[in-house]
């Protein structure tokens, strides 16, 4: 393929050579992009997956709750992590306080730094840093010269009370569980 009348320095020769060279580079770059762009998007896929959107879940029967006495319940939900399905996973715990036909639901997670808040006699107390709350989840003075480190009141959760399909005399309490950012003055949903 070497025309004998052309030398490697002749313009036609170098023009052809340059064209082929850039064609080769261009094709190479095109093929690299064809694989590279999808490969990058494939790698970034987990970033584009939104967090699980919680739903209202039945958590307790209304008849289990005594007026004004906090009742601890677990929230179970189907949790999906890529291809792995956890059909009945505990996603959180709640304190439920019944007032007649109404129920107040509080997350057990302390708004200070996220420990689990206990109920002790007449108030909620966080075992970690003396975060203390009334039975309605409002911050109070821990007493004994201690200060309450919590930046906000205990986090309330949305709930719905609906008829129990298995027992017409009873009702079910549904809770929409959410986790909130700790140590913030306002309640912000954790993504």
């Amino acid at each position: 393929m070497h025309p004998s009348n052309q030398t490697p320095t002749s313009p036609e020769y170098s023009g052809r050579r340059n064209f082929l060279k850039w064609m080769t580079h261009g094709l190479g770059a095109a093929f690299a992009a064809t694989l590279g762009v999808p490969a990058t998007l494939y790698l970034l896929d987990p970033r584009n997956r939104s967090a699980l959107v919680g739903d209202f879940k039945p958590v307790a029967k209304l008849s289990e709750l005594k007026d004004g006495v906090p009742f601890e319940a677990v929230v179970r939900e189907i949790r999906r992590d890529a291809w792995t399905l956890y059909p009945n996973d505990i996603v959180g715990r709640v304190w439920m306080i019944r007032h007649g036909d109404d129920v107040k639901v509080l997350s057990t997670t302390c708004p200070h730094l996220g420990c689990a808040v206990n109920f002790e006699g007449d108030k909620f107390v966080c075992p970690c840093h003396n975060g203390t709350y009334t039975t309605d989840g409002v911050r109070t003075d821990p007493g004994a010269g201690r200060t309450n480190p919590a930046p906000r009141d205990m986090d309330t959760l949305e709930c719905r009370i609906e008829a129990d399909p298995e027992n017409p005399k009873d009702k079910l309490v549904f809770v929409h569980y959410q986790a909130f950012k700790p140590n913030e003055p306002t309640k912000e949903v954790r993504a």
Partner: protein
Amino acid sequence: MRNWINDRTGLGGVIDAMLLEEIPGGAKWRYVWGSALSIVFAIQFVTGVLLMLSYSPGDTTAWGSVYFIQYQMDFGWLIRGLHHFGSQTMVVLLGVHMLQVVIAGAHLKPREVNWWLGLGRTSRADCLMSGRSSKRRSWAVRSMAIKR
């Protein structure tokens, strides 16, 4: 920028050596099979690593993770498809390349070591991969080694 990289890595020299190599008797289309095999192997390597990052080889997760790659992940179908057809293509290209080498006598003295390296690389590719196509390939390698 180009010179800066070239001065420090010599990458340009490597690329030139591959692109502008003087081939005795001139370039021929029948010399492409080795390069084609190398490119397909490179694609297999890249797509293989990508698949490996999302595959879970457990008895309860293998099917689910492959389904997830194929139908849920962005471009998972493309990456897995390239890997699937790449492995089939490698078997064919391997045969064609070896045939070309034998026809050209490139396995004869003084290039036997090159032939052995080729056989070795093929069986190593075997170890790296799994499934039907590699069984076929290892059969090809074994028969080739016996005949030699």
